[in-house]
Structures are given as C-alpha cells and as structure tokens.
C-alpha cells in the first residue's frame, strides 16, 4: 500500500487489521505537511498532537473495539469548521486566536468514525474569494505550479489534498468554494444538496447557501466522507430528516441510460479556455460511449446567477458577520482608556482593523442591499429571481439526470492576476453559483491536464438529494481517465 495514492477505505482497513498503525499514517502525513507547507501555505495551523489521537485509535484497535469507518485517518479541515480546543480563524485576523469550546457537527461525526484532525487549512477570509488571496494568513500556492492560485475559497484544502499532505480534507462551498479549487488543483470536490449536511459549528458566510463537503483524491473517498458527515442534526433546523443513502455501497460505474443535460447558456463560443472546451467535448464522448443520452437544455436565469449570488450572499454575510465586534471573543482594537471611547468608535476600530478588504467590501454591499429603500430592488428582487432559477432547474431535471458543464471558464490563473479586479474575480464563479442558489448537489471531478500543465475538472450537477447520480457518473469518468489521485511533480 502506498500512502501517497491509497484510498481512505484501504488505509482504514489496513489500520484495523494492524498492517499499519494509525500512528505511522498520521506521522507520515504530519511530516509531509511540515515539509511542504512552507512552499504551499496550505495550513494555518498544523496539529502536532494528531499522533496522540492516533495512538489512542491504535490502542482501541488493540483492545478489539469498533473504531469506525475512518479509523485513524488524518484529515485536513478548512478553518471554517469549529474544532474544540483548536484555533479556528476563518482565515481572518478578527478570529486569529479564537479557540472554540465545541466541535462542528460534521467534525463530531468524523471523530466518531475515528478520523483525526491533522491541521486547519488556509482559505479566503470568511470564505469570501475565489483565489485564496484574501486570507489574512497569506495566499496559498497551487502545487501544480507555485505561481498559480489554488482557487478559493477552500484553496488550502485543495492544495493540501492535491499535494497529498493529508488523506482527505473538508471544505465549504457557498458559491463554488469546493468545486472551483478542486478543479484548479486536480482533486475530487463535492458540494452536497443544501440541507444534507449540518451547518452547526461552521463559521457562517451566507447561511442559505453554505454547505460542507469532501475534498479528496478519489470519488470513492468522496462517497465515504459524505456518508459520514450527512444527516439530520437537531442543532440545525435546515437539515433534512431524510435517511442518508449508503453512497459507498451504491457507488457504481454503470450509468447506462443516464440522461445528461448540456446548458446552452454555459457553452457560448469564445467564453471558454480551449482546453476546458475540449474537456467538455471529450467527457461527452466518453459518456456517450458508456450509454448516456445527451439533451440540450436552457436555464435562462443562470445568466443572472452571479448577480443574484452576490446580492443574496453579501446580504446574509453582512448580518452573519455582525457578531465579530470585539466584545465577546476575537480581535479587539487596542484602546488605552476604555472609558474615554465611545461605542461606535470601539466597533469601527475593531472591525476596521480586524476584517480584510474583500470582507469589508461584501459587508458594505450586503448592508446596502438590505437597507430600507433598496431592500425591494435588491435583496427581495434577488430572492424572487432565485426562486425562478430553482424552478427552472426543477424543470430541467424532469428531462435529465445530471447536468454536465465546466467548473470554471479556465484552469487556474496566476497569483495577482485578478485580485485587484473584483468584478473579474466574481465572474469566475459563473458556472458554480447556480448550484448553491438552487440548493443542488454539485461536484468537480479531475478530467485532464491543460497545455500549461494545469488540471481541468468537469462539473456535474443533479436534482436535490441525487448525490448518488453524480457520484456514479464521476466514478465512471474517473475510471475512464485515470486522472484522480495524481500527485504533482515535486510532492
């Protein structure tokens, strides 16, 4: 077994059978993390005590206890997830030293299945960004080419997994933050249906869009992690009561008879990087040969999805981020004499110094959208159009099982290329935001390598709660291309 390429189930099985100890596995990844992090800046904090947890798992196995589906597997966790006793920064100065006294529900579920936390991963500040350049802790580099961005906001997760510094990672996706970096770094990323996975304990960016999901090396690993983290949570009223399917057991490459939708709006000439366009064509050929039927569809509202997204997400964010005020925890601007300052000054200094530029930009946008006099024209209108978009997708999925598309218009771009042009950066989310707005499951699976040597993924979307369909299709593509689990040169 090669830890650089092994699947989670294989490693967990070997740990349980005492062919390798969890300690050895954790130590292997811990050393890789320490060795390569200076190049990549993928981790904000590496958890050296992961080996202590590994020893406990090994002891429990020695005692013959049931240690769960992810026994002794070290995982990197995006810094949006609250982890008891471990700093959780959300990539922001304002939470630089925040140590949560509780675990997010998904962390709790992973731990119950024996998973261990290897470290907390870098990200765009409060998940606001598409390049990981807005992090207070500095940008993350793409392991395929250190001059390129890893994508965002879960850039640390994508980079760490791509360079195989971890067995698996967890990301969050509000407008593409799992799928786009997975595409940029050549890994598998899955955003589940809204309500499938609990949001409790995940730092909130836009509550009606946020979902947590796996960012891993293989489709099978994605199915396993999804199975573990899914399901109703009494602490999150937006989670569904639906039973969680056995995604791993039902994983099958047989997709014969699947109807695959292609959206007219996504395939406008001249918009796509030629290699991305070619990948979509090649993927269609493979799927056709596997017995899939293709249908051209139209979801007109996707044309305005980016606008809706930036209205809804920023509105919710402006309210979600109000709690970071320096009163209870987190960063507080230094004041010599508390009695001499007024409250507004206290807030303005603390938040002014604690938040980065992009976060402040979005808070202001959202505050504006929700203000009386603008509410109807912006927030309310965006909600109406969003409902229309959902209806259109609902219609589309009466005609097809899966919608296939690019993840982004191009492979990864260079560091610094778009950071000074927010609008260009926002347009990067053009293919991914609709999934969140309509609450659909979406996935990015590695497909090819561009002429510049950068990975290209394919995006698959399905109707709500049809994760199995996109997993199966991705599984099929993965077996056809053998592009998963490739570790870039130098790692």
């Amino acid at each position, binding site marked *: 077994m090669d830890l650089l390429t092994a699947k989670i189930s294989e490693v967990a099985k070997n740990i349980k059978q005492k062919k390798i100890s969890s300690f050895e596995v954790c130590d292997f990844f811990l050393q890789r993390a320490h060795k390569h992090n200076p190049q990549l800046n993928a981790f904000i904090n590496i958890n050296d005590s992961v080996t202590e947890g590994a020893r406990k798992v090994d002891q429990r196995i020695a005692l013959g206890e049931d240690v769960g589906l992810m026994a002794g597997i070290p995982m990197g966790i995006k810094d949006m997830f609250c982890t008891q006793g471990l700093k959780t920064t959300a990539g922001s100065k304002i939470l630089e030293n925040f140590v949560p006294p509780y675990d997010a529900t998904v962390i709790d579920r992973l731990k119950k299945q024996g998973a261990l936390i290897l470290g907390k991963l870098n990200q765009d500040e409060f998940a606001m960004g598409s390049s990981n350049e807005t992090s207070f802790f500095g940008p993350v580099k793409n392991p395929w080419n250190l001059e390129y961005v890893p994508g965002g906001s879960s850039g640390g997760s994508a980079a760490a997994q791509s360079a195989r510094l971890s067995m698996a990672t967890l990301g969050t996706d509000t407008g593409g933050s799992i799928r786009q970096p997975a595409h940029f770094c050549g890994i598998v990323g899955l955003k589940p249906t809204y309500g499938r996975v609990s*949001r409790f304990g995940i730092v909130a960016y*836009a509550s009606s869009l946020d979902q947590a999901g796996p960012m891993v090396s293989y489709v099978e690993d994605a199915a396993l992690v999804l199975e573990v983290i899914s399901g109703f949570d009494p602490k999150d009223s937006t989670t569904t009561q639906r039973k969680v399917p056995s995604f791993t057991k039902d994983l099958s490459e047989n997709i014969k008879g699947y109807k695959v939708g292609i959206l007219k709006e996504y395939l406008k000439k001249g918009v796509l990087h030629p290699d991305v366009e070619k990948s979509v064509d090649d993927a269609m050929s493979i799927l056709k040969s596997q017995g899939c039927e293709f249908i051209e569809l139209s979801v007109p509202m996707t044309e305005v999805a980016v606008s809706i997204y930036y209205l809804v997400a920023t509105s919710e964010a402006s309210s979600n981020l109000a709690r970071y005020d320096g009163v*209870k925890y987190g960063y507080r601007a230094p004041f010599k*004499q508390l009695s001499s300052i007024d409250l507004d000054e206290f807030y303005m200094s603390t938040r002014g110094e604690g938040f980065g530029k992009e976060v402040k930009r979005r808070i202001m946008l959202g505050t504006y959208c929700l*203000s009386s006099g603008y509410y109807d024209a912006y927030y309310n209108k965006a909600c109406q159009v969003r409902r229309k978009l959902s209806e259109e997708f609902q219609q589309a999925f009466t005609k097809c099982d899966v919608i296939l598309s690019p993840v982004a218009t191009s492979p990864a771009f260079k560091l610094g290329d778009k950071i000074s042009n927010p609008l260009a950066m926002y347009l990067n989310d053009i293919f991914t935001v609709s999934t969140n707005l309509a609450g659909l499951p979406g996935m990015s699976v590695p497909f090819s390598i561009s002429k510049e040597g950068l990975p290209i993924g394919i995006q698959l979307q399905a109707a709500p709660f049809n994760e199995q369909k996109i997993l199966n299709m991705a599984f099929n593509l993965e077996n056809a291309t053998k592009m998963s689990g490739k570790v870039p040169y130098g790692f």
Partner: protein
Amino acid sequence: MDFRGYEPVIGLEIHAQLKTQSKMFCSDSTKFDALDNENTSPVSVGMPGALPVINKKAVEMSIQAGLALGCQIRHKSVFARKNYFYPDLPKGYQISQYDQPLCEHGKIQFVLDNEVKTISITRAHMEEDAGQSQHIGEYTLINYNRSGVPLLEIVSGPDLRTAKEAAEYARTVRQILRYLDVCDGNLEEGSLRCDCNVSVRKIGAPEFGTKVEIKNINSFRFIEKAIEFEIDRQIDMVEQGQKISQETRLFDPDKNQTISMRSKENAQEYRYFPDPDLLPVIVTDEEIQRLKSLLPELPVQRAQRFIKEFQLPEYDALILTAEKELADYFEKTALQSKNAKAASNWIMTELLRELKQTEKHISQSPVSEATLSELIGMIDQNIISGKMAKSVFSECWKTGKSPAQIVKEHNWVQITDTNAIEKVIEDILAQNPSQVADFRGGRTKVFGFFVGLAMKATKGQASPDLVNQILTIKLSGQ
C-alpha cells in the same frame, strides 16, 4: 377627562417573558436566580457557527396567548433578523418577527369606571431577549443570562385615550397572561416590560401627532404617572408653538417626569430580513384547535359566569376574577357553602383586608376555602351570629383552627332559647324603669340601650334577631 382641547393617543408595547424552562432558540435554562453568565451556551452568546432552533413550547404558549388576546393565528409566520450593534446583543442582530408575525388582529375588553372598553391588539410576535449591561467604573460587564429568553411582544392599536385607561389595559393583559400561566407578570424582575407610545392632537384632528416612546416603566402606577406627565408636557409644547420631536424618553419615578434618552430623528435602520437559519413556523388548524381546547376560562368570561351563576354584582365579579387563584378560592367557597353572596362578602371584606394587612397572597391564606365555607354554614344555621362570626374568622386567621373548634373553646354558641332571652330582657326592663318610661314616652332611641344591655348580659351570645323581636314585644307592654 379634560386635556385643554387636546386628545391624547396612546399605544402600548408589552414585552412578556414566556414561562418556558429553556430559551427561545437553545436549551439554556431561563432560571432567574442563576449566577452571572451561568445560563449561556455557544448559541446564546453568538459564537461562530452556532445556530438557533425554535423552542416548540414557546410557540405553543404564544399561540395560546394570541388566542386569549382574540388574535388570528397565522398559519405561516416568519422569524426575521433585526440588525443593530450593541454589546448586550451578542449576534449583532435580534431574532424577532417582522412582516409575518404569529398573532395579529386581536382585541381585549375591560371595565373602567363602569364602562366597557375595547382595545385592539395590532399584533403579538415572538422574539428573543438581549443580555444586560452593568457599568462598573470604567468597565462595562455583560450578563448574557437573559440573552435568548423568549418574549412575546404584544402591540396595542393606538386606541388608548387616558393614562388610567393605558394602565388598566396593561393590567388586563397581565391578568390574561397569568391566567394562561404563560408569563409570571413580574414587572420588577422584568418578566413583563412596557413601552408607551404617546402623542397628542387637537380634538377632531385627522392626523396623529408626533409620537414619543417612553421606555422601561416597571410598575402600573408609573405607567399612569409617566403618561400623565408626557401628555401635559406635549400639550405645553404644542401650546407654546414648539415642535414635538420623535424620541425615546425614560420615566424617572423620583422626579415624576420623563427625560429624553435618544432622538429618533435619524431613524434606526434595522435591515430586517428573514432569518435564513430558521424555517417558517407552520401552524395547522388542528394545532390551533388543540391549543384552543386547552385554554383555561379567561377572566372576562369567568366574571360574566359569576354574574350569571352566582348573581354577583359586576363590581364584585370583576374584583373576584382579577386573579385566577382568588377566583378559584371564591368559586370553591361559594359551592361548598352554598351561599355565593356570603362567600363574596366575606372574601371582599374580611379576607382581602387581612391579606392586604399581612401582605400575603391568596395562596398563603391561613383560612382555607373549607374553613370559610364552614363559618358561613354556621351563620346560615344560626349557630353563631354574624357579629360573632367576625371574631371566629379572626381567630381562624390567627390560629388556623376550625370554626367549630374555636366556637367550642370560647363557648361562643348563639343563645336561641327564647325563654332564656325573655328572662334576661325582663330583668333588664325591671332594673331600668325610667328608660322604659322614656321609650314608651316616645324616645325610641333608647331601644339600642336595651339591646346593648341584653347582649352584654349574654356575653354577646344572644341571637340579635331574637333580642330585637322579644324587646319590641316587651317594650310595647304586651
């Protein structure tokens, strides 16, 4: 009421703390006497990623309160975020209800100065409380125990016209909530809080004047005083040609005046929007019916029933139903003694007086319903006189003994033996010939003198009725 040709327009916002065991959106306790910040959790102090979950009990209590306030219950109501910054508001927003409240379009009635008043309830919505700030020297300490405690905000229409009416309205709302057992109605502890909106306009004017909000008034008496002061202040200003500014004022009970707290000129921008962390509250007709069937009889209904069933005067009925425990006490006594009129009289005079003097609540009365019923029975059966009964009652109150026991111990049994009374009266008349002559000469006032002597001779035990009858006969010389 005369207001110098002006008409005051008053509306009340009552914040009632619901009597749930846990908070509105998490399982923290709501116990009042907890240590500072003891009743907190990641949810109630707004930690990152913490999410609210609606307390079902709070919704049920709110629906019951809404029904009792005559409101329509929305089948779908929505929690919204009210965004503003303040240190005691841990999330930077309060979860409340905005354009789709749980209860709306209600009304309540009460009697004031022999007139039935009907006041509309615009809405009653659920929300969470904030924490409390405490300023110590140059520091401000915050206690989040109250953060997230469930409140029902009951908003009246602008229907109230006098300070007295406003206070009576507030008392009635409190009474209803206490009857339902959904709020303990304690103004000092803050489980009931009242904001008053006051404006004045020339009688007949079509538009309302600019309203001023008076906040944090912690007694019904102060509601009345604060509004009275405010009405006068506003009329004075208008009379002097000054403009009333929209503002929030506080009532200072020591100075008996309202003082400006903050101007509302630059209107607060709360940026309300539906809370994406919570699903809409869906209430079915069946659920509303079920909760309705569990409602206890309300004060107004009970007073009306007392008037009808027990032939009580309206005044008595209203006083006896002012508190649920008192109404229960009366009803039990009336049924046990089979003499509702007597039960009402005893409670309204002796019992309420003793309770007031000893500062006891009806639930702490040493005289139980059974004891009072027994006492009334003894009067009705002529075992003791009404006058003696008062002494017996006061002994009961002091000792907790039964009336029968007290009567026996003091040998307070009424003398109803006519022969014995005749004998006593004959002796008295024989010993006081001049007064007998006076009476027969037309000075009938001395009748009382003879009664007094007869009662004295029998140590007060002679039946007053028999003494009167026999004395009348004897004096008339028959």
